[in-house]
């Protein structure tokens, strides 16, 4: 079976896409700031690669499913179960950490991964055999995690499916030596819930981001770092460069699965003050780079123009469209152009 083949059992109407067509018409998001410049320098000829080759073997089988869901009233459990099967999710007997995006809570906005999606993902992962599914997040802007979890509706959603929540800002943490060197940090402190999980599922909201252009499954991992050590917000990561930090954190956490909530995303002044965007999309993958590249194209942007996404494809996963097994819906007609965020690419050292 080549990597272009469908997943056995894929549903009617699902087919391989023409990836060349998919990119046509995608807008370019400029990423021209200092961080992007530094990343580009890392790619200069003869420069040693800033990662340990033995720690990041070439990816083998990136699979990404694009699913349609017009609202959160859809059969999300069924959709997510199908999608996870289609990307070959292997969670039988596994302890799974599900990491949604709850950077803060602001009523009436689309900042957060929808709690209904989170609950549905938990049910789907259990159906696929996960031995335990825990939801965890370390909000970056709010110190009172209980407030964010309760007010956002996540607490009720988790209670309905009897799933535990771990505050990653307070969980026991341990040192993880970095095997990539985009930042100067050398090591990261990671919560026990992350390091003990057999499978980490990054579950972001599909959003534009005023510093990183887009925030998807890799940027979402900022919430894995404990704020009690890194601060609210995790400013040291901004000083090290958001894009560089995304790469090092993703290399440390290595989320095996990704579920992007794009049913209602956020466009414009994201990741906090943007406008809700009805996209009607769910993107599921087994490779964070492939998933984020696909989601970025669905947002109408060219991932190769977003430097951290382009750089990630060198070692963290597959960005090459021809190497991604695309399943589910044909994404081309589903491209829903998002309004880009202002100020893309500038380093965030603001206070």
């Amino acid at each position, binding site marked *: 079976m080549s990597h272009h083949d469908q997943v056995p059992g894929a549903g009617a109407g699902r087919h391989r896409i023409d990836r060349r067509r998919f990119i046509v018409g995608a807008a370019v998001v400029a990423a021209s700031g200092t961080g992007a410049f530094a990343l580009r320098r890392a790619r200069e000829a003869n420069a040693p690669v800033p990662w340990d080759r033995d720690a990041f073997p070439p990816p083998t089988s990136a699979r990404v499913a694009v699913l349609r869901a017009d609202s959160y009233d859809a059969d999300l459990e069924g959709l997510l179960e199908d999608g996870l099967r289609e990307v070959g999710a292997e969670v039988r007997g596994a302890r799974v950490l599900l990491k949604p995006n709850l950077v803060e809570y602001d009523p009436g906005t689309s900042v957060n991964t929808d709690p209904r999606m989170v609950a549905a993902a938990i049910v789907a992962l259990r159906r696929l055999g996960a031995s335990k599914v825990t939801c965890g997040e370390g909000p970056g802007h709010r110190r009172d995690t209980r407030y*964010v979890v309760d007010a956002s509706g996540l607490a009720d959603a988790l209670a309905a499916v009897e799933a535990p929540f771990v505050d990653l800002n307070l*969980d*026991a943490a341990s040192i993880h030596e970095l095997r990539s060197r985009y930042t100067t*940090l*050398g090591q990261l402190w990671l919560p026990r819930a992350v390091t003990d999980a057999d499978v980490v599922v990054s579950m972001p909201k599909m959003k534009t981001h005023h510093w990183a252009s887009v925030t998807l499954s890799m940027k979402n991992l900022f919430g894995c770092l404990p704020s009690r050590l890194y601060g609210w917000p995790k400013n*040291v990561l901004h*000083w090290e460069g958001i894009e560089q930090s995304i790469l090092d954190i993703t290399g440390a956490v290595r989320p095996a699965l990704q579920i992007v909530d794009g049913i209602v995303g956020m466009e414009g002044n994201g990741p906090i003050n943007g406008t809700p965007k009805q996209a009607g999309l769910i993107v599921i993958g087994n490779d964070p780079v492939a998933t984020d590249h696909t989601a970025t194209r669905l947002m109408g942007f060219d991932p190769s123009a977003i430097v951290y996404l382009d750089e990630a494809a060198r070692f963290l996963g597959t960005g090459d469209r021809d190497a991604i097994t695309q399943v589910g819906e044909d994404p081309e007609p589903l491209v829903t152009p998002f309004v880009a965020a202002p100020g893309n690419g500038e380093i965030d050292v*603001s206070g």
Partner: protein
Amino acid sequence: MYHGWLVDNPTMLDVLEGALGPRRNADGGFGPAASIASEPEPTAMVGVALADDRARAWLAEHQADDGAITLSIGTVERDLTSVAALALGPGVTRERALDHVERLRAAPAPATALVPIRDDLQGFPWTTHTSTWTEPTAWGLLALRKHRASAVERIDEAVTVLRDRSCVTGGWNYGNRVAFGVELPPFVQTTAIALLALRGTAEDVAEPGLAALERLWRDESEGPLSLATATAALRAYGSPQALPAATALRRAVAQPGGLDTMTLAWGAIALGEGLDRMAAS
């Protein structure tokens, strides 16, 4: 100064203090939650809440040669010296901590059209060599106003930072008044800490901050940390809303699930004598 207020809440204070006791680790310090190794911040907060000598001893044992009390996270350090200085009793250890606090400055951050801030000011950072944010600046200001009033220039600068970062509608969030053309809203927890640091000064921002807190605390009452910090600040300012906030805190404490060490300590400070050791005056 607030002792009479305790009359209505002794039982709850007992509950909070009783919950903190078993959290103590064998080394005398406290972790952020049960069964986690001791760290400076929760240890210092318990030290403030309960005037706890063992917590103070733990902090003293972990003081560096330059007076700093930090948590190392690789190439950077989370600096907790300000809150530790509030926990420590009078003496050389506290003075050395205050020396460090007085020296500690956030890295300059350039103002931009997108994030307009006064870039001539340096408050306090979360981690060494990073920029100014509300909460660490409030802690630095609080420590200096409480125990190093002679640090006039540093105190004035920190007050000016909080003035610069106060939200358009009053109160404070993590640290940005406006970003990308949007006026950002205040949060209860950060507003409460900033108010504690500004008590008795900077009425031009403290008064709207207090008004914001009195307006907002019910909206964030799902959060026990928000409730505890709000109660502390409302009580320190003599707000008539302190008692209803404390009542809501009582309900939150009774909820199942347990509370983290910081929230328990804040609850004890909000209701107990620890507020004397916390609020500037």
